[in-house]
């Protein structure tokens, strides 16, 4: 068995046709033909929730099976954690991380990539400490991303992003294109291994919502390069302070988010195509999920972190294909959580699940009745089949 775990950061479930036709906050459909294509063969989990927010804590849930909220904040893999790549390597399963998620390589987040047999790090997203020239990027773009003081060497300077993308030309230079191409190539080049675990962690759809064409103009009639239209809004209330957005600005931000969703979807399709080409579906479990959503004016908020944890943030997409599943394209209403992926993946590899994990396995192969649930979750109904 192989397992391919794909995270698409900040992907709102309501933007996926598998969950609903039109997102909550726009009146147009957002094209996600490849995620739809995957949903047709996958089990679709309707009640899946984040456990620990945002970003890195979700990764510890997936990779180490620890639901760390409220015990710990954003931080490293702990010395006592038994990560999936470490446990699977002990069974001679080759493991690979493909990501542009630069947080793995920053202060305070050690331990996430080190256990993998190999990793590919696509450079340059958001604040990734990559390019240092030119000192002054295009001023209009700096304004559009709310970058101040390009000369400052303090951390979290938005001008870093402008430098990182200075030489980008078309959409193939952008991050999701590189991440999913790398993943697709890895799958083809490594198909001779008996078993593999590949974790593809796409930083997109995460802001900055800086879209190349054709995606930038796909859902708006505005000029995407208009200096007065932000692609990297501040977090906060949309009706006051530095995060205030006019109706036009908010519509534009939404359109760029939607454009990014479609862009990522097209790149994700490369992986599906490669699984088709290599005829790997019968020996590969594929999981598609996200760490959290993103407020786009919902409840009066933009961003994340500050607002109460409404469903738009915490109710996340989860779709799983398992070769033995009897539930192609079916929706499951059982309550599941991010941390459940840890035992689910280990069980798929027939690797013993550490007893201390907070997760409950929910292999789709277990879901054989109309209404089922993972054990231990009180709000779900039905029974889980014993195997």
């Amino acid at each position: 068995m192989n397992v391919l775990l794909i995270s698409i950061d900040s992907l709102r479930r309501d933007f996926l046709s598998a969950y609903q036709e039109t997102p909550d906050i726009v009146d147009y459909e957002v094209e996600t033909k490849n995620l739809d294509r995957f949903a047709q063969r996958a089990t679709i989990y309707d009640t899946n929730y984040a456990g620990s927010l945002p970003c890195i804590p979700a990764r510890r849930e997936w990779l180490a099976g620890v639901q760390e909220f409220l015990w710990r904040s954003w931080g490293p893999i702990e010395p006592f954690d038994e990560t999936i790549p470490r446990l699977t390597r002990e069974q001679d399963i080759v493991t690979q991380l493909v990501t542009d998620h630069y947080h793995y390589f920053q202060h305070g987040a050690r331990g996430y990539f080190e256990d993998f047999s190999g990793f590919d790090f696509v450079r340059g997203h958001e604040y990734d400490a990559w390019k240092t020239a030119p000192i002054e990027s295009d001023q209009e773009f700096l304004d559009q991303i709310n970058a101040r003081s390009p000369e400052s060497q303090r951390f979290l300077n938005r001008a870093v992003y402008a430098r990182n993308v200075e030489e980008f030309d078309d959409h193939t230079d952008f991050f999701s294109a590189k991440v999913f191409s790398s993943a697709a190539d890895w799958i083809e080049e490594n198909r001779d291994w008996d078993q593999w675990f590949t974790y593809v962690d796409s930083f997109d759809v995460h802001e900055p919502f800086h879209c190349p064409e054709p995606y930038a103009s796909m859902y708006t009639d505005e000029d995407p390069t208009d200096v007065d239209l932000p692609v990297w809004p501040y977090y906060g209330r949309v009706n006051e302070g530095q995060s205030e957005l006019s109706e036009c600005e908010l519509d534009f931000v939404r359109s760029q988010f939607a454009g990014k969703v479609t862009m990522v979807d097209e790149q994700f399709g490369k992986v599906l195509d490669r699984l088709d080409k290599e005829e790997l579906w019968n020996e590969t479990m594929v999981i598609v999920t996200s760490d959290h959503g993103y407020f786009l004016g919902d409840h009066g908020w933009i961003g994340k972190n500050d607002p109460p944890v409404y469903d738009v943030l915490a109710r996340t997409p989860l779709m799983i294909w398992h070769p033995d599943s009897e539930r192609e394209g079916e929706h499951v209403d059982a309550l599941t959580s991010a941390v459940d992926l840890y035992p689910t993946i280990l069980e798929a590899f027939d690797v013993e699940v550490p007893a201390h994990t907070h997760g409950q396995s929910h292999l789709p192969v277990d879901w054989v009745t109309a209404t089922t649930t993972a054990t231990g979750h009180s709000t779900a109904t039905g029974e889980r089949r014993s195997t």
Partner: protein
Amino acid sequence: MPLIECCLNNVSADTRAAIANSDEQVRETICLDRCGECYDQSFLVVDGELRTGKSHRNILQSLDVDDQEAEI
């Protein structure tokens, strides 16, 4: 009345109490994404605009001066 936004990482407990007891409209957040300024100096965001100074008291006093000049 201006909206003052302050980052909880940038204000002391005393300053926080003083701002809260002022007549200003205040919003506190865990991060205002102004980390460079936050590391270097005292700052507040007033009606969306960054205001820096030697201390939060100085920034607030400068707002009073602005208000007085506006009235003149």
